[in-house]
């Protein structure tokens, strides 16, 4: 197997050896060690402090046990030694689409990324395996001081800002997978919106895993300065292989006083991807953070977007939908911590289980003793479409302030026969009627997405519903 000379030049003779597979420029052999972590940092020519953070995180990861909750039988199947922790398929991040290697370009063109950019986006980052391969931002936003870069470029060009905020919202010791991400992160987005600037159109990142046994560990940091606003949209896909891939991202949002961040995700990983993600935001005075989270694909998703309401008057919203098909477990939810007075939050979670899939809502809301007059509302609805599937709800509510008003309600049901009958009496087939009901069930989520994403999601759900009847 031919080794990569470029990699050798950078990190020396890597003990496990290098090899070119697919069209990768650099591919580390599978397995994780402190040397792999240091080598990733060296390849990226990172400052010393980042290397040290990575190494500390790796040591924590190595010591920390796997979670003893959730779908432990699926988690136990992850073999960290079989995962490739770094794979670079392009030698640079391009800002001219024509410069992106042809095969990667074709992949993203098939996914409709360049077309979407021209029509309705303020900026785009496209990540292929470990590194961003394409990046662009509208010139008027640059002129206003908006920074939108891939995370590696962000670290190179704005090291002070990154050092100030990196790991400030999600410390590496938060959980086993945030430690893993901090140790081997690569790619992701870095966004800074200056005071008072409103980014009217969404910015988008698209993440693609292409290789077998690949681990993708992007790291995203978004800082909205006082009075600013931004809407970030991310999409994820991967091809289907018989072996599993691992996606373990960390997203940190910092909403400074009066700002507004909306973070939308449509996750459609293939059914061989473990999607174990930590997403958290801190909202300062009167700031607002919204997570709009759609989980359609993956083998196992464990993702609980969270918000720490640190500043008085801040607000959080989490709207999430999950579709669990055959062999899938969508273990998703939300966490909101009310630390300051007059803070409000709302969680709406919808899930559908079908063909033996399992959908779980796992959530936590807390109100601290000093947080007066907080209001929070949690609603979870689940539909089970057949006898093989399962739906769970595990909400936790901890309230230590007597002025708080907190509500949680959840229901699990089947599709109403009356609704099916009515739609069929209006000329729809049973299958069409079911797809319409499912789209209607997800409507509170889709209406919060940019239109193109909403249309795409409806199409995806119609495809998933095919063959549901009979």
């Amino acid at each position, binding site marked *: 197997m031919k080794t990569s000379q470029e990699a050798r030049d950078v990190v020396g003779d890597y003990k496990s050896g290098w090899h070119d597979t697919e069209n990768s420029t650099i591919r580390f052999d599978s397995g994780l060690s402190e040397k792999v972590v240091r080598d990733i940092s060296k390849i990226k020519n990172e400052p010393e402090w980042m290397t040290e953070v990575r190494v500390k995180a790796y040591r924590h990861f190595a010591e920390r046990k796997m*979670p*003893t*909750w959730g779908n432990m039988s699926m988690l136990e199947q992850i073999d960290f030694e079989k995962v490739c922790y770094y794979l670079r398929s392009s030698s640079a991040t391009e800002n001219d689409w024509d410069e992106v290697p042809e095969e990667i370009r074709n992949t993203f063109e098939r996914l409709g990324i360049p077309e979407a950019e021209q029509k309705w986006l303020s900026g785009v980052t496209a990540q292929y395996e470990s590194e961003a391969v394409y990046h662009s931002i509208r010139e008027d936003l640059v002129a206003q001081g908006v920074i939108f870069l891939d995370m590696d470029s962000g670290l190179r060009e704005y090291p002070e800002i990154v050092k100030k905020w990196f790991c400030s919202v999600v410390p590496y010791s938060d959980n086993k997978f945030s430690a893993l991400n901090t140790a081997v992160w690569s790619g992701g987005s870095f966004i800074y919106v200056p005071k008072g600037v409103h980014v009217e159109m969404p910015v988008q990142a698209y993440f693609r895993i292409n290789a077998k046994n690949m681990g993708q560990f992007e790291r995203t940091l978004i800082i909205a300065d006082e009075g600013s606003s931004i809407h970030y949209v991310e999409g994820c896909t991967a091809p289907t292989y018989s072996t599993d891939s691992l996606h373990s991202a960390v997203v940190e949002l910092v909403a400074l006083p009066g700002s507004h961040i909306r973070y939308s995700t449509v996750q459609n990983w293939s059914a061989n991807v473990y999607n174990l993600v930590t997403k958290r935001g801190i909202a300062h005075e009167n700031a607002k953070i919204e997570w709009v989270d759609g989980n359609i694909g993956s083998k196992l998703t464990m993702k609980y977007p969270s918000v720490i309401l640190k500043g008085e008057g801040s607000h959080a919203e989490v709207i999430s939908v999950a579709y669990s098909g055959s062999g899938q477990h969508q273990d998703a939810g939300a966490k909101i911590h009310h630390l300051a007075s007059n803070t409000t939050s709302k969680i709406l979670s919808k899930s559908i289980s079908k063909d033996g899939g399992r959908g779980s809502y796992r959530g936590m809301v807390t109100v601290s*003793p000093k947080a007066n007059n907080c209001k929070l509302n949690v609603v979870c609805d*689940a539909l*089970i*479409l*057949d*006898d093989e*599937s*399962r*739906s*769970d*709800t*595990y*909400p*936790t*509510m*901890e*309230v*230590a*302030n*007597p*002025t*708080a*008003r*907190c*509500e*949680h*309600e*959840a*229901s*699990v*049901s*089947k599709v109403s026969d009356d609704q099916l009958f009515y739609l069929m009496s209006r000329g729809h087939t049973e299958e069409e009627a079911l797809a319409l009901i499912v789209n209607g069930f997800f409507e509170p989520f889709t209406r919060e997405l940019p239109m193109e994403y909403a249309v795409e999601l409806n199409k995806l759900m119609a495809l998933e519903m095919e063959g549901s009847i009979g």
Partner: protein
Amino acid sequence: MNAINRYKEVSGTTDKADHLWRYTPWKKVHPTGDIKIVPEIDKEVKLRLINLDGTDLAEGISLQKGNVLEEKIEDIDPVATSFIKAVSEKSRWVLRTERKFTSEAPILLEIETNSDFNSLELVLDIGEMSEFEIVTLIKGESDWTGFLRTGRIGDGSNINDITVCLQKKGVLLRLDSIALGRDANMNTGTVSSGSERTKADLRYRMAENGSHLQVLGSILSREDMYLDYHIEIQHDAPETFSRLDWHAACGGKSRTIGTGMLKVAKGSTGTDAAQNFHNLLLSKDAEADGIPELEVSESNVVGCGHGIANGPIDENQVFYLQSRGFSKSDARSALIAAFLNSTLVKMGSTVLHEWLSKLLTSELDAMNK
């Protein structure tokens, strides 16, 4: 394997990730704090079975002391169960009713816990088509009390079963593992305003068609009380119905915890199940936590749902009562009593409700002093 060896085998297996042990670790419940120790309890617990109104017990009910058969208890936490079995050797009882036993008067089972450590195992063997109301009153000044209740409610029976916990101090570890027979109807309530720390794990299994269960709680916590209730309801048969309605009022520096698990097994078609937790926070240092969980593996259900609501006393209601001549503290007491009474009133007959209301009023008076 005897109970002591069984306990020693499992004693270190509790996990905070399991919501049963999330808020109260086993070592906080264990009488010595050292979970390896199985203390010897040489005194037996005193039990008394009488009619609540002082009349003679009806024919067909008996409370017998003796060895309980080493039956297999499914779906209950092995650590706490094996511990109570290990320390209850001298206090094992069977409460049995004959087929078609009925009693007009509510029955009172008094459990007096006055030695330092008490532990008791009680098996319910309720005959078919029985109809009666029973109150189990746990009172006394012991440092530690364990109470394991297992058994089956016979087919077609209709019983109201209330457990009142009024210990003046100490720790109460209470475990229920009750199965409901075909078309059995059980109202089971908990009224609690005692013990410094309560850890309760109450499990009910709808094992046969058509069973109907209502689980109710009226919990008043005050001072430094720490009351942790876990309630698990499992639907294992078609056309079964359950409701959980849990009301807790938390004052002083107390903390109440309500974790509920509703499981609907595959094949339990036509299940109708719901759980609701309501917490009223009465002081700035009180805390109320809740985790109502659902696991549903059957699609053809009437409905499965749960809810939780936490909040303070509604000041508009206080203001209204003040405008009708109540003092502020009387208005608050009346609203707390009404909040707790909304579950109390569903627990049994009018006679029983009056008895429970008096008890609750005296506890509220104690809180206001």
